C-alpha cells in the first residue's frame, strides 16, 4: 500500500519521489489543506478506501496514513 500511496503523491501531487518516506509528514511534503481534500478524494477513487480529509490531518506521517488506508480496505473486504 505504501508504494500505491507514494505513486499517488508523485503522479497526482507532483511530490518529489525521494521525499515520500513513511516518516514524512504533510508539512515535509508541503501538502496544504486543499491538497489534503484532494488526497482523500484520490484515495477513495483510486485506492478504494474511504478516509476523510480530517482524518488525514489528524495523522502525523505517511506511514500512519498508509496504515489507516490498509485498515479501511480490510474493513471493506470483510
Amino acid at each position: 500500500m505504501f508504494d500505491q500511496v507514494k505513486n499517488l503523491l508523485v503522479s497526482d501531487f507532483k511530490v518529489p519521489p525521494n521525499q515520500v518516506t513513511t516518516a514524512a509528514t504533510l508539512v515535509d511534503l508541503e501538502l496544504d489543506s486543499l491538497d489534503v481534500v484532494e488526497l482523500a478524494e484520490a484515495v477513495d477513487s483510486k485506492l478504494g478506501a474511504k478516509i476523510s480529509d480530517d482524518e488525514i490531518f489528524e495523522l502525523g506521517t505517511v506511514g500512519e496514513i498508509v496504515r489507516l488506508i490498509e485498515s479501511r480496505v480490510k474493513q471493506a473486504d470483510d
Partner: protein
Amino acid sequence: MAVTGMGIVSPAGSNVERNWNRVCSGTPTAMADPALIGGPVTFSCRISDFDVDCLPNPRQTRRLDRFAQLALVAANDALADAGIDTNDWNGSRVAVVIGNGAGGQTSLDDQYRILEEKDHSHVSSLLLPMFLPNMVAGQISLSFGITGPAMIVGTACASGADAIGIARELLNSGRCDIALAGGTEVMLTPMMVAGFARMKVLSTRNSCPTSASRPFDRKRDGLVLSEGAGILVLERWKDADARRARIHGILRGYGASSDAHHVTTPEPRGLGLERAIKSALEDAEIGSSAVKHVNAHGTSTRLNDVIEAQVLSRVFGQHTSVTSTKGVTGHTFGAAGAIEAIFTILTLQRGLIPPTANLTELDPDVDLDVVAGVPRVQEIDTAVSNSMGFGGHNSALVFTRM
C-alpha cells in the same frame, strides 16, 4: 510607455517568433476538433504543442486551469525577453493586469460533470482556485514575487487591450514601475461552443475549417473560436532607457468607450468604436492622418467586419492599410487584444504587415486597403490596434515605432 518584453502562446505557435512567422505566412490554424464532435461546430483553433511541463513549478501547475497556464508561460517569456531578473527586483513596484473573459471554464465544466455523475463530495477542492478569473493575476504574482497591484480586466473580446491600457494608467500615475499586462483565454469547451453557436456568431464551415476564419471577405460566415495568451512588459520610457533595455515599441495612447446599445450587437454606425479610436489618438496627441496601419478587430462575423470597416473608413480613409490576424489565429477572445497588440508592435518594428488569411474577395461594403495574400513590406511609424467586446466594449491602442 515602452514595451520591453513580449510573450505569446497561441495556436499559431508557442512563442512570439513562431506566431509572427505563422501570421505572416497567412496559414490558418483552424482544424477539426475531436472534443467538439457531435456539436454544431466541430472545429476550432486549438494549441496542439503546449507542454505544461515547461512551467518551472509542477506542483503549482497542477493547480492552474489551462487559461492560467498559458498566461504564466507567456509572462515568463515576456519577462525573459525584457531581460528582467525577477529574483532581483522590487516586487512591490510591479503590477499585473490581465484581460480575461471566462476564467477556468475547462475546470468548471469538468467539475460540473463530476457533480452530476457522482456527488458534491467528489468535487475538487481546487475548483475555485482553478476557475476564478482573477486567479491568473494571482498566480502570476505568486510565481514572480509580485506584490504590487494584481488584477484582471473583463471586457470580453476587448479585455486584453483594456488590460494594457489600464496598466499604462498605473504606470503613468506612478503606482508601479513595471507592469505585466495582456490577456488570456481558454473557453474551447463543448458548452461554451454551444453557447457561441446559439448566438449565431460562429462559422459553420465544418467541412473546411481552414477557410472558415476569413475577415472582411464577402463569403465570411462567422468567427472561429481559439485559445491563447499574450503578455507584454511595460515600463516608463525613461526607466527602460536607463537600464538600457531593448524597446520593441512605444504604447502612445489608449482609448475606451461603451456602446450602450445592445448586449452583443455592435452599435450599427460604430460610433462607440469611433469614439474609442479618437480618444486613443487624442491621448497619443497624434492626428488620424499619421496612422498608416490598423490591426483590426476583424472577427470574420458579418456584423463586426462591416461596422468596423465603416469606422476605419471614416476615421482613416484609404491611406491606412488594414489587416486582421484572426484569419490565422482565430478569435482568442480575452487574449485577442494583447496578442494583436504584439503583432502591431512587430509590424512597426519589422516593417512588415501580415496578410488577412482567406481574404479572396473583399466585401463590397468594406472600402479599405486590406492586406491579403502575402505580407506587405511597408515602413510604418504609427499604428492602431482595435478591439470590440460583447457588452458594447470598444478599445483602441496606439503604438509608435522606436
